[in-house]
């Protein structure tokens, strides 16, 4: 996993739930690209249209609250985001994202410190980010060892494939 990321941010509010990230009426879609096109359409359908690969999603507290739909994490990844920063994350969304190899970085107060379109430089391992325009440096929370091991493997799928392969060898 690339632990240094630079990109411009789009800033969302508090308690952005999974219905806003990925509305229920689209749940029957299974194609990841199609899911990505509808990302955040419950907030504003234009977000996914304008989003450029490498842009960084920043949100307030409890981002991803609500349902357990993995579509929410699939949508964010396929919209082109490679990291999400928020004041805090909801639990199931956190697990889903890490499992799919999307790092979620908690940074208390981030949503009120950056503005739409500003460029930030994030260092996940060092646990800090820099807002380029102002030069302000913010501390970010480090991910736990288990979450990092999943991310470093590129998600839980490669990790499980490896586990299955080893099991077969033993047999």
């Amino acid at each position, binding site marked *: 996993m690339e632990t240094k990321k630079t990109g411009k941010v789009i800033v969302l509010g508090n308690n952005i739930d999974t*219905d*806003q990230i990925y*509305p229920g009426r689209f*749940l029957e879609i*299974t194609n990841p690209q199609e899911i990505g096109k509808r990302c955040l359409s*419950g907030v504003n359908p234009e977000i996914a249209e304008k989003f450029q690969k490498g842009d960084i999603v920043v949100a307030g507290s409890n981002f991803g609250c609500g349902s*357990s739909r993995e579509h929410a994490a699939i949508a964010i990844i396929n919209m082109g985001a490679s990291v999400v920063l928020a004041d805090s994350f909801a639990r*199931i969304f956190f697990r889903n994202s890490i499992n799919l190899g999307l790092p979620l970085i908690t940074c208390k107060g981030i949503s009120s410190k950056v503005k739409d379109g500003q460029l930030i430089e994030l260092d996940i391992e060092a646990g800090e980010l820099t807002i380029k325009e102002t030069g302000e440096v913010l501390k970010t929370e480090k991910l736990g060892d288990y979450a990092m091991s999943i991310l470093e493997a590129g998600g839980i799928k490669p990790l499980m*494939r490896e586990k299955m392969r080893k099991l077969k060898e033993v047999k």
Partner: protein
Amino acid sequence: MHAIEKILAKNSGRDKVETGEIVMAKVDFAEINDLYLQTVYSFYEMDGEKVWDKDRAAFVFDHYAPAPTIASAQIHKEMREFAREQDLTYHFDVNAGVCHQVMPEAGLVYPGMILVATDSHTTTHGAFGALGTGVGATDMATILMTGELWFRVPEVIEVRIDGMPKYGVMPKDVVLLVLGKLKADGAVYKAIDFTGTYVEQLGVAGRMVICNMAVEMGAKTAYMQPNDEVLQYVSKRAVRPYEVVFTDEGYQYSETYHFEVKDLEPQVAAPSSVDNVFNLDDVEKVKIDQAFVGTCTGGRLEDIEAAADILRGKKIAKWVRLLVIPASTEVMQESIKKGYLQELMDAGATISTPGCGPCLSAHEGVIASGEVCVSTSNRNFPGRMGSSESKIYLASPATVAASALTGYLTNPIVGGDQ
């Protein structure tokens, strides 16, 4: 240790666990609903071959029951094929109901177990003294392959609820009160243990309502110490032997909140956040288009009974739709036997197939732009039940029925105590 910690310790083969630890625990039952075909895809993407235990995993078709579109019919088809190939012992097709109601009815939920499902409202099963928690599709696929899942041992918050509310104030009002105080992020990553004299006397249905909405505060799981009514329910149904777990005396909760519900008035969560809670009487006059009794929160026999008690012999307001969707086939059959569905239909209700209904705008009564729905369900996020320009008020079944009668948000308690 707390009962929840004891359950995690037992299932991870240890004597003791500590808050914040990551443990790998055995899952006693894994349940997948019909939103999550990705579970099957992830299973194969990870080179899964055989479900770890064919007696401990099941599909429940509830969000799209029966299939409203070709795409959802395809989802059901592929899931059925997987369930047949894997020879799963239990299967709940479009004739069953909402997963959280169907699972306990089938005896698959009992005290001391770990139930993991692809649905956030799996916290419901704390009502039975079980550890229930929701996960996404890929987490579920790892369980299907290995029978276990990693858990972070959560902090436990005590929510003590004392007193007996007056007639017409329901468990839904009580949990909305709690939600209004703790807020939507009040228990993120944590567990909530509901205690107090109110909880001790509460029946199975009421317990399920309250534990169900624990996730709306961000909780990983909920817990209530089983009482006699719970044990009677479970003993008649459980498919496996079980052991009730108890929290050690003197256990230190991470936080304690105390609520007294003796004087509680009907509550409502106004658009568009679950924690935007008010006394119903403090909300200005709201005209409604649809009233909805149903879902894993408010579609049980007791909820339908409360609606029937208010609407018996009366007619709902002109231009208002009243949708009644029993949570399960068993609930529907009981409601028919007791005459509630007949009475509700006489009053003008539309009855639909047991399942999730329009709660998450999948089908069966979604709402249009500018419309207002008062609902016994659990979420009022923007666009949750249809158009992003619609509004949802969350309330008790009694409030929903009283509102259907007048066409406006209405307090079901007329002139105080009845």
